């Protein structure tokens, strides 16, 4: 079931078109990636969903109903450009943000204690924000975003400013929140995290959705018949009618090759022929990474072949 639905939303600032009839639907309880280069319109769309700005046309529905002013309390938003009141105490700040979202003070206090505990920040509760390290402040910011148990979470570049250790903790927390039933909209340039956590994505470029769907399906769709072949003891034989060899490297007598199948050639055929000629150690299809698809879609040019692939 679609929890969040963006229907035909358009927005223009002066002569600059920020969004051209963008539509998208996000399943309940899923993590949805919103991708796109800087200036593509991601933040404009996110601000419209947050009711910070209003669309020129189109509408946003939550649970099948057009959003109302009260729906902002169901959303937790972590903007890309984020910050805190430096002079406020950690506990006061978190409770202030929770109460702005309509939470009662007592409830907010109970929740806050748990979160501070989880992030190992309990002893900082009465310190001022300015006394915190950047990573700690980011954690406080995260708590402020999720403390009111929002049904929809919007993270804009959530990992910027986090070191790898804390980024991993954050990723786990995001997945945990998803498992607890939250729907998550996730805007990022970090394609590794997209592949790791997102089920579906929309790629926005020049104010339009240029690519959308399930991450796995997209990778399948963009595959280029590339395979890595490991041959033991001997180099890969050359069969120009079956494949072209893009790259070959020898390691301890074994050869790893990157091959591209000719159109119409099946995997079965190739493996059968190779089995006759050499000792086959491995044969694996290479799917393009989201990173590659992103760059290819946005620039219109493929990334240098065999470049940044992952398994």
């Amino acid at each position, binding site marked *: 079931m679609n929890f969040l639905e963006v229907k035909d939303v358009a927005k223009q600032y*002066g002569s600059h078109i920020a969004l051209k009839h963008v539509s998208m639907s996000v399943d309940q309880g899923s993590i949805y990636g919103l991708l796109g280069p800087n200036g593509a319109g991601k933040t404009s769309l996110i601000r419209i969903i947050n009711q910070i700005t209003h669309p020129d046309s189109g509408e946003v529905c939550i649970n099948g109903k057009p959003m109302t002013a009260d729906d902002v309390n169901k959303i937790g*938003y972590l903007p890309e*450009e*984020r910050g*805190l009141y430096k002079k406020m105490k950690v506990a006061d700040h978190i409770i202030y943000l929770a*109460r702005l979202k309509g939470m009662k003070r007592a409830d907010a206090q109970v929740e806050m204690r748990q979160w501070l505990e989880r992030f190992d920040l309990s002893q900082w509760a009465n310190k001022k924000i300015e006394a915190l390290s950047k990573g700690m402040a980011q954690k406080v910011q995260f708590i402020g975003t999720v403390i009111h148990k929002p049904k929809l979470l919007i993270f804009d570049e959530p990992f910027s400013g986090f070191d790898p250790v804390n980024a991993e903790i954050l990723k786990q927390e995001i997945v945990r929140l998803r498992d607890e039933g939250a729907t998550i909209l996730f805007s990022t340039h970090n394609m590794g995290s997209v592949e790791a956590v997102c089920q579906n994505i929309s790629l926005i470029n020049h104010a339009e959705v240029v690519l959308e769907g399930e991450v796995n399906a997209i990778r399948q769709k963009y595959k280029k018949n590339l395979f890595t072949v490991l041959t033991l003891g001997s180099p890969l034989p050359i069969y120009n009618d079956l494949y072209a060899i893009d790259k070959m490297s020898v390691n301890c007598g074994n050869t790893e090759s990157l091959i591209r199948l000719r159109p119409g050639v099946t995997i079965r055929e190739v493996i059968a022929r190779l089995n006759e000629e050499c000792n086959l150690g491995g044969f694996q299809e290479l799917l393009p990474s989201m990173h590659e698809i992103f760059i290819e879609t946005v620039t219109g040019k493929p990334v240098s072949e065999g470049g940044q692939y992952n398994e």
Partner: protein
Amino acid sequence: MNKNRFFLIVQREYLETVAKKSFIVMTLLMPFLIVLLGGVPVLLEKLNKSDVKTVAVIDETNQLASAIKSDEAFHFELIEQATEGNPRQLYDNRGDELYAIVVIPRDIESTHQVLVYSESSVNSVLVSHLHTAMSRVLTDAKIASYGIDGLDKILKECNIDVDVRSIKWSDEGDEQTSSTELAMLIGIVLSLMSYMFVIMYGSMIMNSVIEEKSNRIVEVIVSSCKPIELMLGKIVGVALVGLTQMLIWSILLGIVGSIVGIGFASTEAQAVAGAMAEASTDSSIIEMLGSINYLQILGFFAIYFVGGFLLYASLFAAFGSAVDQASDASQFTTPIVMIIVIALYAAIACMENPDGDIAFWCSMIPFTSPMVMMVRLPFDVPAWQSLLSIAILYASAIGLTALSARIYRTGILLYGKKNSIKDLIKWLK
């Protein structure tokens, strides 16, 4: 508008500002500073008095010098002409100990001139001292020279000083003595207070807006509330901070003032009281003070102060939203401060003629009325004018707040661009 959220924002703004060190220091120190500033001239005068200057007097007439009497500030020393010769020579001999040399020329009765030689420019107190003394002795000599008995008495009686007492009818038809000076004084003090507080708390609002913007917290906040709630919450919060500060100041000023007052009571305070008693020959100051309707003035002051504050505060908030850092704000604050200064000048100009055309029109223009009306109020402004001016002020304050809110909600989310007034007008659409 969500009431709970609005009050939450007001509360945070208030508590965070009041807890700031700068606020606490400023609030506690200001009354002492005021008393200190008021006390400095008195102290300086005291210090000055202790330093007696010696002035040499060369009397070519050999009879008038006795009219110049030494006092706490100047010691006059009569120099025998024959012994010391001309002033230059005298100064060369005794320059170190002499402040100035006064020469009463032989022909003073026809020229009416006294000469003062000195190395630096001469103290004005000395000049007026000499002026008074010599004028009196020459006048007396002149009168005596006519040889008419009792002429001095006649002349004294002819010197008539008319005391103008203004009496106004109250609504009940009672006669009340009013004091123009006192009314002017109250008016200008209230006007200055409005001026000071609008600028002070206006910039407090602006800085708070800029801080939220440069902290990048603002996008988090406006994803939870409407921008106008944030802006109004800020304005109301700072207004409450202002009221708190004023309350503390008046209490502290009262305490400090009375302590210092007791200390000075024996000397200065008595002198001042004496002078005041002298000034108001038969109508007592108390009566005049009583003739001014304080409650009414205070009520109007509150109404105009709140209206004027709202009018300017939203402007400060809108301009604050248009810049990234406080240092960029001056291009916007300069025009506002200029308008406020013009309003203050208008108020001062209206003091002279509180019922004139300028006064009337400046009371109708919302940007000047909060200050100008303070000056006019003690002079009984026609009711319709007050009501009309208040109506215009509040209508424009509400209108301007609505416009400012449009600028604000766009401005707070725009970074990295220097915006001009033209851009701001575009955001209104």
